[in-house]
């Protein structure tokens, strides 16, 4: 589970990448891996480290779907909406998840347990529909299997 934001720890992480060519993205990934999101307070620190303006850094963070500016749920569910998964009922699956967890795409559940995101391909297109929960990939996910996965994580 991601830790809460610590400015000092964030600076230490950023420092490790400041001499890496094109190091901004690796630094952002490292921050996100540690905290689950990139706090806005890191923007000026990143800007100094990579010799860019804060606006540039803000632009990069907001451009990419992966980078979050607020704390996500304890688990992040990514449901694939690519065509291969649609052909096997991904739209119905995502509707079912929204109904059961009472959450919208791009938001997190009221209890902070789950964030729900849509993605457009997890590379598991022969075993559709596919879902990824944090770093674990699932294939042939029925609504019931998804429900079991969520209940298993909550337990």
């Amino acid at each position, binding site marked *: 589970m991601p830790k809460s934001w610590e400015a000092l720890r964030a600076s230490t992480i950023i420092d490790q990448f400041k001499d890496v060519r094109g*190091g901004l993205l690796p630094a952002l990934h490292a921050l996100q891996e540690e905290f689950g999101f990139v706090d806005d307070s890191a923007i000026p620190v990143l800007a100094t480290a990579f010799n860019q303006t804060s606006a540039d850094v803000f632009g990069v963070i907001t451009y990419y*779907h992966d980078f979050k500016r607020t704390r996500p749920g304890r688990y992040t569910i990514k449901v694939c909406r690519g065509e291969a998964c649609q052909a096997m009922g991904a739209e119905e699956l995502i509707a079912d998840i929204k109904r059961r967890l009472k959450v919208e795409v791009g938001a997190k559940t009221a209890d902070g347990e789950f964030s729900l995101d849509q993605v*457009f391909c997890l590379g598991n*297109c*022969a075993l559709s529909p596919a879902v990824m929960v944090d*770093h674990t990939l*699932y294939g042939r996910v029925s609504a019931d299997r998804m429900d079991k996965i969520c209940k298993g994580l909550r337990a």
Partner: protein
Amino acid sequence: MSHITIYVPNDSAARSVGAEDVADAIVTESAKRNIEIKLIRNGTRGMLWLEPLVEVATPLGRVAYGPVDVSDVTGLFEAGFLTGGSHKLSHGLTDQMEWLKNQDRVTFCRLGITDPLNPDDYAANGGLDGLKKALTLSAHDIIAEVTHSGLRGRGGAASSTGNKWKSVRNEHAEEKFICCNADEGDSGTYADRMVMEDDPFMLLEGMAIAGIAVGATQGYIYLRSEYIQAKEHLEAAISLATERNWIGAHILGSTHSFFVEVRVGAGSYVCGEQTAMLESLEGKRGIVRAQPPALTQVGLWGKPTVVNNVLTLATVPVILAKGAAFYKAYGVGHSHGTQSFQLAGNIRQGGLVEKAFGISLNDLIHQFGGGTATGRPVRAVQVGGPLGAYLPVKHLDVSGDYESIDAINGIMGHGGIVVFDDTVDMVKQAQFAMEFCVEESCGKCTPCRIGSVRGMEILDDLLAGDDVEANLILLQDVCDVMVDGSLCGMGRSTPLPVQSAMDHFREDFNRPAAKRRVA
């Protein structure tokens, strides 16, 4: 008898349907029975519908069982599967299975046979032959070999790989780069993932050969962030290959050096476009660059750069090892060699079919794929990813090669084939194509940024059944502007699935709104 060797794939698709649990269950069960086994975590054989596919080594060859569930494991032991005993999940000798036997596994010659992270296994199965050969040739001769093989960019652009390398070779610069595009974002494609998870050394070998050929010493693999296991395998392979001196300083004792680093994307589809990919590698927003100058002249950090897809680079070693003529003998017309077709979506037997260009889509879908998973009739097939056309059944006898698919206004792209049954609503698929572009457009050029939003709105009206004739004309107009006015393939090709839906599935646009299914 000494120990028995059992194979359980460590591929993420196999794991997504329980390969880990099956592997654990086999270990537990054999311990319980006091049987000594050697468990090898191989790559997938590409028969994804049979995953988890367990294989047992017997004196006659490897025998396959699948799809194995944890609950099947005890039964398999009881049926004597350790000696290849018969069981309802048995498929006999793996190599004799029709689905595999009828393929041309050239690039993927080791797929599922080896342990992806065992360098000895790699070298014992033809790995490294290409690199060793390359080290005996001049740069000119390496490039000539690749050019003569007819290898074309497997990412979708299909331009000559040899010519691209030659352009970079001819540039004079302090630094040059090999950038491997591993941002495999097209729905319906997973062949790059398989290269990286299931045979990663061949990608490193291909990149090293490219580096030697063009005079580059640094390579980057730009990997999409969704491919978590591919990242683990690549990084492990890089460190193993460096230990063996297959990459790094003075490769295999030669004067050539080549270093490889993995860089992870951040969930942007357009970063699979080569100029956007380089921007992203430089740590910027993944915004498309206008060309010229060509990347072969002004690429990564302004230096001459080869950008090749994973499959392209992974195919280079076998071309060097076996010669241009060997590779060129496969295929038809100007489409030389093999294509890694990926069967996906609503398909009974989904998986990787590597076959010489020229096999018909029908044969791929029916002979290999076994028709739809739902058992309903095939209605639409999207070839070449989300920017590819939806083809109707009447076009499926088309030969699977670049030129033939182009001729019916489709694209081969990265070789993904996504099958839909007759419940598909093509107006919704057309709208999804526009929605995808709204989500993924980099925003640099107006036709793509605004056109996709307008397209979605018009398709909202069409879904509601409003003013169908006028809205179809308007939609066509938006498509034309996007095709003619966009900077890169994202805006130029988004209209392709939309137009193909209008051309081939016109009846769906006339369906009353009340008759549409809602998710």
